[in-house]
Structure formats: structure tokens, C-alpha cells
């Protein structure tokens, strides 16, 4: 008998070896997966979970610190381009903007300041601004000129007062212009709530609203609206011309549904049916929104319709986190 069976299982089986194989097979390695590998994987998941907890905790802490600001603290001036003064004294980038101080810029000047820790504001040429309040909330007054703000913070953390009303951020970036009784607010991210003497508007990203003293904001419209649409809207908003409404409706594109929805909220009862029909043709209302309810200015239904336009939730300000960068 040779060793072939012992070596590779070929050849004539050796009964003694077969017997030993049968007996000793009970000790064979159970080729299962590596237990420690599973443990390692579990540890990896635990490590990932722990890291996530740490990241979330650190983020919350950083966010809390971001919002914390003393009411007597001054804002840092980050950049001065051209001539600018604080209470009449020329400044450079080492200056600080304290509560009650008036900042003025020259004809070709720009000044950038940090809004506490929540964002930045750039003051444009030929402008006058005053820091009115800081701390938990930050308030500026735009006497004249332009400013652009970009911040990431809970709604109403930052606001700018103009003679035409108060522009409050809702997690956003926006530009404000005001001079000689008129101006405009242009929103590039999030929303702005503009509260005037006689009306208010929630202006979404991409939209513009004209401003007038003693009135407040006009109806928001998208910047790419047709001249006919804008002219008719201007006539309705600031000349009190109700006959302009059919021209607004006639010039409206589907994208202008946002404007028509605003008009529904502020138009007279006798004009709402026409607006409802026009809006329904451009952007059909979602289930649960009825003609009767909208004509009655049911806020819940108007909100449902607004959300169906894909404008984004006003309360979801944190999704504009890029404004923190």
C-alpha cells in the first residue's frame, strides 16, 4: 500500500487512516467568519456613532457660542475700501462699530463688518447706517444707501430698520437699498420678512420687493418678470390702481404664481376670484385648498398653496447653512 491516500486522498483508502479521519473530524475547524472581525465591525460602528455624537455635540456648542454676544460688545470692521467715517472720524479695518455709532461711506467706498458672530454686512457707497442694538438680537438702521447682509442664524436675529419698514432676516442673504423715500429689498437666500406701516411681505429667495415710505413693501416679484408685469404690479402697489390687476394677471407666467398668491392675500374681496382663477390656471391648488377657503383668505390654505409652489418652508431656515460660510 503506498501513501497516495494519505497524501491527497487518491488511491486505495487505508482503513486505519479512514478510521482516524472519522474520529478526529470532530475537532475540525469550523471555518466561520472571524468573530473578532464582527467585533471590529461593531466597534467601527460604535466609533462612527461616537464620532457622530461628538460632531453633533461640538456643532451645537459651536452654534450656541455663535449666537452668544454681549449687548455692550462692538462689531468688528473687517474691511474698509475708500473713505469711511464713524461719528465723523475716518476709520480703517481696525475700527469697531459700537451701539449708537453712525457709519458713513464715501461715494466709492465699501465697508464690511461682522454681525456679531452670525454673519457679515457690507455697507455700500454713499450710505449712512447706525448700529441700534446688539446682543441676543442685532438691529441696524439704514438712513440712506445700500447694504447687503449674509447670515445664518435663527429667524429675526438680524433686522434693518428703514423709513419704509423693518427688514428681518429669516436665515438669509439679502440686499437693501433705500434713498429719498423709496428703495427695494432683494433676497438671494432664505426669506426676508419686510414689515411696513400698512402692509408686510414675506419675500423668498430670488425675489424683489419695492419699498415706499409710509406704505412698506410692494408685492414681491421675481427679478426676471416681464416689464409689463412689473409696471402693472407697481401701479397696483403704489398708485392704488385696481384696474392694473387684470394686466398683472394677463402678464403672469407660471413662475409668477408666487406674486399672485401674495396678491390674493392683499387684494379686495371683489378682485380675489379673478386672482384665484388665474392662479389656479398657472399653479393648481393642492388637495384641501378650496376656492371658498382661499377667497375667505384662510391662512392655512394659503400656506398650503404657497408650499406647493416649492418655495421652501419659512421655518426651515437652517437649510441655508451655506450662508454661514
Amino acid at each position: 500500500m503506498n501513501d497516495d491516500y494519505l497524501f491527497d486522498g487518491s488511491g486505495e483508502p487505508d482503513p486505519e487512516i479512514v478510521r482516524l479521519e472519522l474520529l478526529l473530524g470532530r475537532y475540525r475547524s469550523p471555518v466561520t467568519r472571524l468573530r473578532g472581525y464582527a467585533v471590529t465591525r461593531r466597534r467601527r460602528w460604535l466609533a462612527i456613532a461616537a464620532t457622530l455624537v461628538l460632531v453633533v455635540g461640538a456643532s451645537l456648542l459651536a452654534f450656541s457660542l455663535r449666537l452668544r454676544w454681549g449687548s455692550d460688545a462692538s462689531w468688528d470692521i473687517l474691511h474698509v475700501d475708500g473713505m469711511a467715517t464713524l461719528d465723523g472720524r475716518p476709520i480703517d479695518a481696525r475700527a469697531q462699530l459700537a451701539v449708537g455709532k453712525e457709519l458713513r461711506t464715501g461715494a466709492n467706498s465699501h465697508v464690511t463688518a461682522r454681525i456679531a458672530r452670525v454673519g457679515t454686512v457690507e455697507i455700500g457707497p454713499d450710505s449712512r447706517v447706525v448700529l441700534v442694538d446688539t446682543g441676543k438680537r442685532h438691529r441696524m438702521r439704514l438712513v440712506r444707501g445700500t447694504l447687503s447682509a449674509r447670515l445664518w442664524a435663527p429667524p429675526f436675529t438680524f433686522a434693518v430698520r428703514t423709513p419704509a419698514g423693518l427688514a428681518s432676516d429669516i436665515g438669509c442673504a439679502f440686499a437693501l437699498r433705500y434713498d429719498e423715500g423709496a428703495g427695494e429689498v432683494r433676497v438671494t437666500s432664505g426669506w426676508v420678512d419686510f414689515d411696513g406701516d400698512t402692509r408686510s411681505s414675506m419675500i423668498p429667495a430670488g425675489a424683489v420687493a419695492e419699498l415706499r415710505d409710509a406704505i412698506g413693501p410692494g408685492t414681491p416679484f421675481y427679478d426676471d418678470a416681464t416689464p409689463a408685469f412689473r409696471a402693472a404690479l407697481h401701479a397696483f402697489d403704489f398708485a392704488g390702481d385696481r384696474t392694473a390687476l387684470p394686466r398683472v394677471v394677463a402678464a403672469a407666467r407660471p413662475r409668477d404664481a408666487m406674486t399672485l398668491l401674495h396678491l390674493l392675500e392683499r387684494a379686495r374681496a371683489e378682485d380675489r376670484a379673478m386672482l384665484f382663477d388665474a392662479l389656479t390656471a398657472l399653479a393648481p391648488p393642492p388637495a384641501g385648498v378650496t376656492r371658498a377657503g382661499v377667497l375667505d383668505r384662510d391662512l392655512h390654505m394659503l400656506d398650503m398653496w404657497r408650499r406647493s409652489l416649492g418655495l421652501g418652508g419659512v421655518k426651515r431656515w437652517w437649510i441655508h447653512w451655506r450662508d454661514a460660510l
Partner: protein
Amino acid sequence: MGSATATLTLARRVHLHQYVTVTNDFHSPDDLPLVRASRDGDRSAFAALYTRYSRMVHAIVLARVPPAEAEDLVQEVFLAALRQLHSLRDESAFGGWLATIARNRAAGFHRGAVTMVEMPERGAPGTQQDEQEARRALLAIQSLPEAYRETLVMRLVEGMTGPEIAARTGLTPDSVRVNLHRGMKLLREALA
């Protein structure tokens, strides 16, 4: 006479051991991609190495420790290998390196104050007599020289063929054949 037999047996063992001793400088190019991927953190690659080498490691361990302890030691060997993989200088020498870890771990088992617990064996249920015979056979194998016992356990316990044993251990097929032949002869003598 007994002393002469013992001397002869010892001399023969030494001679045979020199001839068939397991080398640790075995190189397996097939392992290279898996070892490199494992070093880069690819756990599936390491799992593949485990599948490839677990029977060899189990055999090396079982050639030295009680069956009830072998499985845990195998796990320890692979976990140690996973942790120390970065220290492996020659990636193609993974098999020999792993075998050394296994032998060291098994030796460490005997050095440590370990309470040995007899566990029921796996596999098909047998009679009490079969169990006693199996235990006796394993003890006999464990008393053989290192190279023989490892090769015999791989063949008789793990069911590996001679070529498989050669591929995993780095021995030549001829050396495996000699190990098996001589080891089996010594085992028959021990069980007689």
C-alpha cells in the same frame, strides 16, 4: 534496551526534524493583493485571508492545545495578525508569519495560568468509546515532533490534502508527503 530505543528514537526525531522542519520564509504571491488590501483597511480582504488560512492556523494550534481552547486561540491569532499587519515587512510571507503567530500564541497558552475546561466536541455524535479513541489519537499526535503533528492535524483533522498543506505552509509537496508518511508511522506506533 529501553535507553537505546529512546536514544535511537531521539536521534531519528532530530534527523527528521532537520529534514522537514517548517520554514517561516515561505512566500505566496497569491496572498499579496489580499495582504496589501488588508493593510489598507479592506476588511473583506482580511476575511478572505481568514478563510484561506483558518484551517492551517487551527491545525497549528490544535497540535498544541486542547480542542476546547483551539477555536478561541484561532480568533486571537487572526486578531493579533490584523493588529500587527502593519509590521509585516514582506507581504508575500504572510503564511509563514501567521504560522509563527499561531505557534507563539499556542506556546503562550501553556505558559499562562489557564483553567482548561473540557468541552464537548463538534461533529457527528459518536459513542463514548469513539470519543475516548479520538481524544487518545489527538493526544498521540500532540506528542509527535512539531512538523509531524502540524502536518498530521492538517490532514487527519482538517481534511486538507497534501498539496493544500504544501500551498499553505510553504513546504514542498515532497516534504509534506514525507512528513505525513513518517508522522503516520510514529502515530501508528504510539497507538499500537
